[in-house]
């Protein structure tokens, strides 16, 4: 990891809104985070918390209308070493960044590839676009990339169509496509959610290995905490379009300082932890009650307050600020100090 410490991408106060028939959806409402070179940043959060919108904002692929980046800046340092604000870049300049400096892979491997072109064509397209290679050379690159992501017989597979491949293979193709131009940043939006556990394991393994070889940064979006634990260096937890907690992966898992993070952690069944004795009642998963709030109708204060078991009257007064709780571990909860205290007591 060569440039550890240098900030590659910095998102500051990003606001992306959608105007719908029913009103304005503040999908991303003042999100701030950064990614350093070579680092993997995981973004977690429930469905609808704004993870995808954030990543699409970084790619400037928000469908407009109805969506629009209304505020904030996205500062990115490309391969050329120049820092640019993605929000204000021209469309032509943005196209040079997409697929070249920043690549993206999506959740649905089955539908994210164009069914009428061969996978080789689709990988080569990016190569031709950004590296000025001719078709033949680009296809060569495509074959190499397929081999790189571990697809057997890449010379043959390069001429196959997506439907001839399984979900896992398609996701590898997506990765190959994303990596074909050696991007500085890879955005992976729930790359394994649609996959089976065994295939998920393959893909995660692959991504980790590739990252080591290529040395890129990864913005990894998921709501699967197990995956986060395996992949991430740092974690951003989102809720209701805002970052509610941010910190080192170990800190987040061991000393969460936001009730939502705690709830999430508690609701996962962990293999091997529930060895209940036959005949005895089983324990309970500690679920977060209720549903994600309606993004049209967020509570005035902390968005999590209606579902929070630590809620106090103050929580609904104003949106809490994102505070540093020490060592870059940030939390958007007015009671974080109490949690920190409690954690210290437990460890003590």
């Amino acid at each position, binding site marked *: 990891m060569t440039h550890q410490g240098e900030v590659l991408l910095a998102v500051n106060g990003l606001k992306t809104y959608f105007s719908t028939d029913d009103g304005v959806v503040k999908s991303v409402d003042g999100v701030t985070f950064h990614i350093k070179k070579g680092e993997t940043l995981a973004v977690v959060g429930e469905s609808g918390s704004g993870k995808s919108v954030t990543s699409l904002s970084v790619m400037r692929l928000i469908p407009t209308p109805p969506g629009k980046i209304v505020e904030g800046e996205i500062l990115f340092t490309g391969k050329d070493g120049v820092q640019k604000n993605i929000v204000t870049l021209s469309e032509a300049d943005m196209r040079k960044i997409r697929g070249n400096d920043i690549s993206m892979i999506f959740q649905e491997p089955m539908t994210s590839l164009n069914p009428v072109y061969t996978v080789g064509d689709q990988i080569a397209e990016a190569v031709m676009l950004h590296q000025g290679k001719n078709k033949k050379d680009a296809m060569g690159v495509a074959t190499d990339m397929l081999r790189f992501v571990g697809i057997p017989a890449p010379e043959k597979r390069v001429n196959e169509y997506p439907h001839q491949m399984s979900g*896992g293979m398609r996701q590898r193709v997506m990765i190959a496509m994303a990596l074909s131009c050696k991007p500085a940043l890879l955005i992976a939006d729930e790359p394994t959610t649609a996959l089976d556990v065994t*295939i998920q394991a393959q893909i995660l*393994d692959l991504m980790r290995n590739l990252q080591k070889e290529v040395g890129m940064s990864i913005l990894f979006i998921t709501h699967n*905490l*197990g995956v986060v634990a395996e992949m991430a260096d740092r974690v951003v937890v989102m809720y209701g379009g805002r970052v509610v907690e941010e910190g080192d*992966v170990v800190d987040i*898992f061991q000393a969460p300082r936001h009730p939502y993070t705690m709830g999430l952690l508690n609701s996962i069944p962990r*293999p091997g932890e529930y060895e209940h004795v036959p005949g005895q009642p089983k324990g309970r998963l500690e679920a977060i009650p209720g549903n994600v709030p309606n993004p049209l109708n967020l509570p005035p204060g902390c968005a999590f307050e209606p579902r929070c078991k630590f809620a106090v009257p103050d929580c609904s007064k104003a949106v809490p600020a994102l505070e540093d709780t020490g060592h870059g571990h940030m939390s958007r909860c007015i009671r974080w100090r109490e949690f920190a205290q409690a954690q210290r007591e437990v460890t003590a």
Partner: protein
Amino acid sequence: MTAVSNQTRRTMPATGDTLLDVQNLEKFFPIRGGLLSRVVGNVKAVNDVSFKVGRGEVVGLVGESGSGKTTAGRAILRLIEPTGGQVLFNGTDITKLSKGQMRDYRREMQIIFQDPFASLNPRMTVSDIIGEAMQIHNLHPGKQRVDRIAELLQKVGLRPEHMRRYPHEFSGGQRQRIGIARALAVDPAFIVADEPVSALDVSIQAQVVNLLQDLQEELGLTVLFIAHDLAVVEYICDRIIVMYLGRVMEIAPSRELNRNPKHPYTEALLSAAPVPDPTVKRQRIILEGDIPSPINPPSGCVFRTRCRYAIADCANIVPELREVSPGHFKACIRDDIL
């Protein structure tokens, strides 16, 4: 909220009375082709599957996508007609029953579907959906029916006033609850829960899992719980059946299976699940390649193409499911591993 109810004591598997006995269940989907669209092949979705489920027991059915879990679950309920084998429910072979006779058994056996979006008729209100079952079986006629629906809704954590709403007005988790309420409407003894939480977000998943567990304990239900995520299954089930490519690989009590998997596939499946703890760096067994086509499954042991312990014999012998320790069965010819 109600605490865990202690009314029902669970019986240990197989020892107590058996509610469901599946014998050599088989479901082949024909593939048509050729000049006169004759059958040219079969998708062997479920192939020679046998297991028993005790009364009040919760049995998990796991395996990766396409391994035949749903098909097995539906064939047991005769929602699709099995092509072979028997399903004994309370000692009666329901595969031989006529449509009319089957209808009475339907009261006893219910299913919760994987997809909470596709399994509710979008044109019916919640009360229609739940009430339909009662209407069919003439349960709770007249005014009582509304009360019963309200009661069921409350039981699954919804409110009576939700009765008048349509499915699209609910979130995924809420819909899954409606599905559960529908299954419970006829007071069944046995429920197939077909991946009831796979489509849900983690936090919602926990809600539904808890609900299911409560209901099971409260009502003494027998449940076949289908999933591909071992973590959830292990948490809720007494025993677990592992399937691969239409065949049973291993059956064991859940704790035993987790601690001491005897089949290489189970081992790989267990290791594949990511652990939500950044400090633990487990060595994972990565299965190479994809699940083979169920039309042309590998000869011998169907898992051998991805098995790291495969030997030459694996291609020749179809391994039988044998008991390796009390209550622990596996279908693998090698005893020298694991």
